[in-house]
Structure formats: C-alpha cells, structure tokens
C-alpha cells in the first residue's frame, strides 16, 4: 500500500510569480515590502503553493487513508536567499522515509516523510520542503 521509500515523482515546472507572491503575502497578513513589486521574493512557506503547478499524478502517493491523515511537520530549507519573482524552478517529490509507532489507543500510526526539491535553471538546489505525514491508528485499535 503506497509507494516505497525512494519513489520519485516526475519533474514539473513552477514559475515564481509576482502576483502569486502578493496574493500569498495578503493571506499571511504581511505588509512587508519584500513581497511587493517586481523584485518580490518568496515568503518562507510560499513554496507550498507549488502544488498548484503539479500536473495530475505528479505528487507521490504515500497510500494513507485520507480520513486518518494528519500533517505533522513541515520544513522549508533555503540554500541561499529565497527565490525571486520570475525565477523558474524545477520541482520533484521523493518519499525519503517511512516508519511506524504504536498509537496511544492501540494500533499502529504510520509516518511518511516526503521531500520536495526546487532546482534553479542551472540545476542547483535552491530550496527543499520536507513534510511529515501521519496516518493515525484505525479506530478500535486494530492496525
């Protein structure tokens, strides 16, 4: 069930757009001038919107039951200043870890860690997003 560790999704393109940054900044209630104008840069959690660029089927499938799915942790790492408006990024997802822990009420909780890489036009790694997904133990304690 679900794809194994090492599974990599296809590459897709994400264009860092000035208007999208402005929209995101409004949603985060920021008036910071760094997020306005032609030189706008990406806010710390902006790359999450890259999913809007993903073609159908590009997201790796961890195989968890959506009704028991929790987003446990989310990390963004920038290997330099955050991306700027106009930059074209190549994005891909990879499942890097899976593990299980006993749930508090019996049964097993399942965890999956998915890393999304964002590469610049020269192929260099610009940023990474790492998310930990949790599938809670089924009700009744049976796993």
């Amino acid at each position, binding site marked *: 069930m679900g794809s194994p560790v090492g599974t990599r999704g296809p590459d897709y393109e994400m264009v860092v757009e000035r208007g999208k940054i402005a929209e995101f*900044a409004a949603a985060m*209630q920021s008036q910071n001038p760094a997020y306005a104008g032609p030189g706008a840069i990406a*806010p710390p*959690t902006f790359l999450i919107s890259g999913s809007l660029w993903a073609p159908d089927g590009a997201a790796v499938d961890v195989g968890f039951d959506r009704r028991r799915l929790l987003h446990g*942790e989310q990390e963004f790492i920038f290997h330099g200043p955050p991306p700027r408006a106009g930059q074209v990024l190549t994005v891909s997802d990879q499942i890097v870890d899976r593990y299980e822990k006993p749930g508090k009420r019996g049964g097993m909780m399942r965890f999956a860690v998915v890393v999304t890489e964002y590469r610049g036009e020269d192929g260099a790694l610009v940023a990474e997003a790492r998310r930990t997904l949790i599938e809670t133990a089924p009700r009744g304690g049976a796993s």
Partner: protein
Amino acid sequence: MQVEVGEKAEAREYGPLTTRMFVRYAGASGDFNPMHYDDLLARAAGYPSVFSQGMHSAALLASFAVDWLGPENVRRFAVRFREQVWPDDVLSCSGEITAISHNESGALVTAELTATRQTGGIAVSASADFLLPILPLT
C-alpha cells in the same frame, strides 16, 4: 541588526481569525480541503465548525518572523502542528533567539517561534534559521 541569544521579539496578535481568511489562504496556497471553508461538510464530519489550515497559522507565524529577522535572510523554517485553530481565535506570535553561529557570510541565527491561541494552547511552533549579513557585537 544586532542580536543576542535570549533576545525576544515584541509579540504580535493576529485575529480574530475568520473563515474569509481561511478561504484567502486556500486560494493562495492551493489547499482546498473543504474542512477549512465548508461549514456544513465540517459539521457533518463531526467538527464544531470549519477550522484553519495548519499552514495558514504557519504563514502568520512566518509573517511575524520575517518582520523581525528579515525576509531575505530566512534559510530554514520548520513548523510543528499542535492544536487546531478555529474562527474567532486570536493567535499571539512570539519568538526568541536560541542560538547564533558565525560563518564567513554572517551570523546564522536560530529562533524558536510560537503561535499561541487565546486559550493558552499552542497552535503551531516553529524553529527557524536566518542568516544575518552582518556580525552581531560580541
């Protein structure tokens, strides 16, 4: 900018939060889970009402953090989701510098950040690194 370990940012409040804000975040981020804007569906699923996206609270905490340490300087922003956030909640964001390390490009500052609900419960906590281009006074 001069910083030292133990320095705290002036706390800032966001809210009362509204469903409209959740909708705005849904559009900005692409997270269209209906639990965040469709009250009928949320109640049918057993929730008292719609609730905020965890990443929405994280974005507000990020907004707070960049006004403090600089939007260009962020190098890592890691969030942990703790409690759900509901309409009319007020999130109080706070932050403290917990470590500073120096390298040739400046001072890498680690801050621990928290968005706390009016109940005292922590909605999201974050650990973030900012690379400040100038060295702090020692």
